[in-house]
């Protein structure tokens, strides 16, 4: 499949996926990217910092997530830990509800096409 179609899907859903990850618990950039890769790498493709950091920046700017800086254990530097805010959690609930209806709707079209023999 052409990568541009995957990009389109990713573009629309990655913010919600990141909110889901952060709703599970506080996390930092590298860990988020690792989780994305491990749990969604087959579908999303390799998670990349160049894609994830701008989204984190936007979510934080929108008040949907918050961050705190803490010292990194190993190298003496710092790590930015992200967590979801109440506003982010409220939006996530709306998004997940919409997503369920969205998937159901799209599935309806796909099933219909399958029944008609248009696709396998």
């Amino acid at each position, binding site marked *: 499949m052409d990568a541009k179609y995957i990009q389109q899907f990713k573009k629309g859903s990655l913010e919600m996926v990141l909110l889901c990850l952060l709703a599970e618990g506080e996390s930092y950039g590298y860990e988020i*990217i690792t989780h994305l890769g491990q749990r969604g790498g087959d579908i999303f493709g390799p998670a990349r910092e160049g894609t994830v950091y701008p989204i984190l920046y936007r979510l934080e700017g929108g008040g949907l997530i918050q961050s705190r800086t803490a010292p990194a254990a190993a190298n003496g*530097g710092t790590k930015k830990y992200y967590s979801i805010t109440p506003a982010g959690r409220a939006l996530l609930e709306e998004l997940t509800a919409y997503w369920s209806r969205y998937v159901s709707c799209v599935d309806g079209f796909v099933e219909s096409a399958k029944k008609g023999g248009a696709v396998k």
Partner: protein
Amino acid sequence: MKERYIKQVKNRLLLSREAEASVLAGLRESFASAAEHGEGEAETIARLGPPRQFADEVMADLGGESFAAGRRQRAVRAAVLTALFAATLLVRTLVGPGLHEQGVHTYNLRPYLLFVAALSPLYYGLAGAVILALPSVWRDLRIRRGEVRRGMGLLCAALFLLLWGFLWIYLLGGFPTYAFSRAATFLLQYPVCFLPLGAGVFAGLNRR
């Protein structure tokens, strides 16, 4: 290797200061976290992709927003520069004519002074604002077109500021004009001449 990579990314990013700082901090943290997990710098760079690609990904997401956010900043900057220019004109008015009007100059520019007199300080201020805004406009256009070359933008801005600096000093009477050729004197005498000059540089640099 890591610092070089980060620098190359930075040079290709054209974002608000806040967005740029956030993205670069994230990038630094990625290197540090990767090292914690036993990943070498070369491996991390291979995973991140070439600096240009990394910057393009970031710009594709945040570039438009930064462009819009920077609009107000640019308007304020133009207003401040115009006010400064107007203040310079005021100082010139208060301290009297520059050296060129005291007979130190070599070239006789008297006929042109009539033309200068017809131009109000507001016109000078406006011309100054337009000229000073040109590098920003040029840079914005490049962002819109996805061509991000901060170095050229800075060079262009430096060129305009240098020319403008000469003009300011001249208006304050700091330069004996005989130090310049006739053409340079003419350019310094009439700020309006900078408009076509600026437009020319602008057009030249914008050409693909």
